């Protein structure tokens, strides 16, 4: 199997503080990998670098053999729009937009037929089993429903890999299980590659691979 993501010798410093230290890792195509480690160990920072949200101080990242190390800000934005989907712990939905519009958000800058855009968003919401909430704003949705909207948004641009930073961190255990099932389903049925950060040992154990981080280093 080929690698969807390759990172070599990544380092990241904020002023004097080195947060990521010489990390090299690969994620295989179709793999569901899990990043664990103590708070402050640098998981979010590493995820930001791997997903093109942040530039490393040193090292190289490529996704599907597209190197993003030397990309400009604009190229990175385009890269995120076309190749990457994000799911965050605190959902980060736009409060003024309804569910389907939030899903379609990454497509707003894309020139395409409005109806097609809406259709694609609604389809994804149906897939997440919240099609009936398509016209509701985030404030009227439960945490689980918000995260389903966020996952639909991550999928709307048909990405090659999904980065999820503690996607169940704000949810109770039952809802966490449901969200996890959705991610697993995406991984198994659609072959979506996923890199997820979590603190939950059980959730981590149910993925293909666990990557441990400690003090900015990948230890296993």
């Amino acid at each position, binding site marked *: 199997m080929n690698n969807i993501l390759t990172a070599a010798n990544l380092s990241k410093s904020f002023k004097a503080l080195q947060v990521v230290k010489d990390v090299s890792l690969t994620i295989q195509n179709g793999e569901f990998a899990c990043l664990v480690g103590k708070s402050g160990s640098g998981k*979010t*920072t590493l995820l*930001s670098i791997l997903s093109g*949200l*942040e530039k490393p101080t040193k090292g190289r990242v490529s996704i599907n053999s597209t190197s993003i190390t030397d990309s400009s*800000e*604009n190229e990175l*934005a*385009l*890269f*995120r*729009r*076309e190749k*990457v989907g*994000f799911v*965050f*712990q*605190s959902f*980060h*939905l*736009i*409060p*003024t*937009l309804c569910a389907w*519009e939030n899903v379609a*958000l*990454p497509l*707003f*800058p894309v020139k395409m037929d409005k109806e097609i855009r809406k259709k694609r968003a609604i389809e994804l919401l149906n897939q997440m089993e919240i099609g009936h909430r398509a016209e509701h704003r985030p404030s009227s949705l439960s945490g689980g429903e918000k995260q389903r909207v966020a996952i639909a*948004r991550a999928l709307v*641009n048909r990405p090659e890999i999904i980065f999820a*930073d*503690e996607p169940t*961190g704000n949810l109770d255990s039952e809802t966490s299980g449901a969200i996890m099932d959705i991610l697993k389903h995406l991984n198994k049925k659609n072959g979506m590659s996923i890199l997820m950060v979590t603190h939950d040992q059980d959730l981590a154990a149910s993925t293909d691979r666990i990557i441990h981080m400690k003090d900015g280093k990948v230890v296993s």
Partner: protein
Amino acid sequence: MNLIYMGKELYHRKRRTLTAVFSLALGITILITINALSKAYSEAARMPLKEIESDIIVQRAGNVPENLDGAVFACSAVTIRKDEVNQIRQLQGIQGFVQALLLWVFDADRFTIVLGFDPKNPVGPGALRTQVTQGKFFEKGKNQALAESSYAETYDIKPGDTVTVGGQDFQISGIVDASRATKIAVANIYLDMEDAQRMAKESKQVQNVSPFESNDANILFIKANPEQIDSLARSIKKIIGEKASISTPASFLKHLGSLFSLSDKFSLATSLIALVITILIVLKTMAGNLAERANEIGVLKAVGWSNKDVVGQVIGESIIQCLAGGILGLIFSLIAASMLGLIQVSIPIPWEMSPTPHFLPGGGDPVFKTLQLPVSISWRLAVFSIILSTTIGAVTGGLLSRRISRIKPSEVLKNE
């Protein structure tokens, strides 16, 4: 960029949006109204001259007549010599020109103000042609004259009658309505220039005060290119000399003495101040709005919006908001204009421009031209203010969005 998204954001932040929209509307209203008022006053100041089909009226002040006997010159209008007339006529920017002669005629049984001019010339008192209520306008070379209605009533004069003025007989061709006549160079009898010139030339009183040749005049009515009126007035002053009395729309504007007629600088300064305050309010509300949205903009960037997309969104919102403000301001201005249009202004006509002897009943009373303030909002001003609002929207949006669009998504998306 997405219109619905822009609209929803603006709607969601109603208070901010309304603050920006209304302050811009107010600024635009002040801008338009002040400019419309200032234009209305200069338009009004043009009216007394406009109704006598002139832009400039030229006279020369002189001495008071020694004896009030026969034809005399009012002290406000003495001889303007033929050579001076010709010199003025050749100035650049003159579009129409007529010379006239105003005389006070003291006959044994009556006093008559006489105005002589070429009846075929549409400039100046020739405009009276449309105000004839009985009979016809007088013709050249036929010893005809036009009588003003209240004078005609006093002396029981009808079209076809013969009147004797200054020892000459004239046949009355028609009556002109005094109330509808102009307020400048008002006379009792209007007649041909040559007849008036003869009367003046033969008058000892005239010759004593101000030597007069048969081709001279004492009032000039000039139509001119609007842009050149003031420079023409200066050139004419040079030709006539110290005693010149030259009336232009600008000189009437001075008599109006309104704040808005004082100077263009006043309206310009007020409009500018209003605009600057408006822009500051719009900037402040938008900056507050954007500061609250750092997180949201981080999300947009995380999901793949480029800086340009973010800038576009913010500018779009700002333009929509400012355009709404501009349109609202235009509506406010139209309402304001229709109310200001009810204001009546009275433009004082200087005694010199329509002299009557002080000893007569009503002589020397102040004369006013009263009219409703012609306030209107020109298409140009309307279009300009809409373009201006849009530009304010684009510029403030552009200024504010530049920085916010550079937000690093990873900074704001840190789990809070």
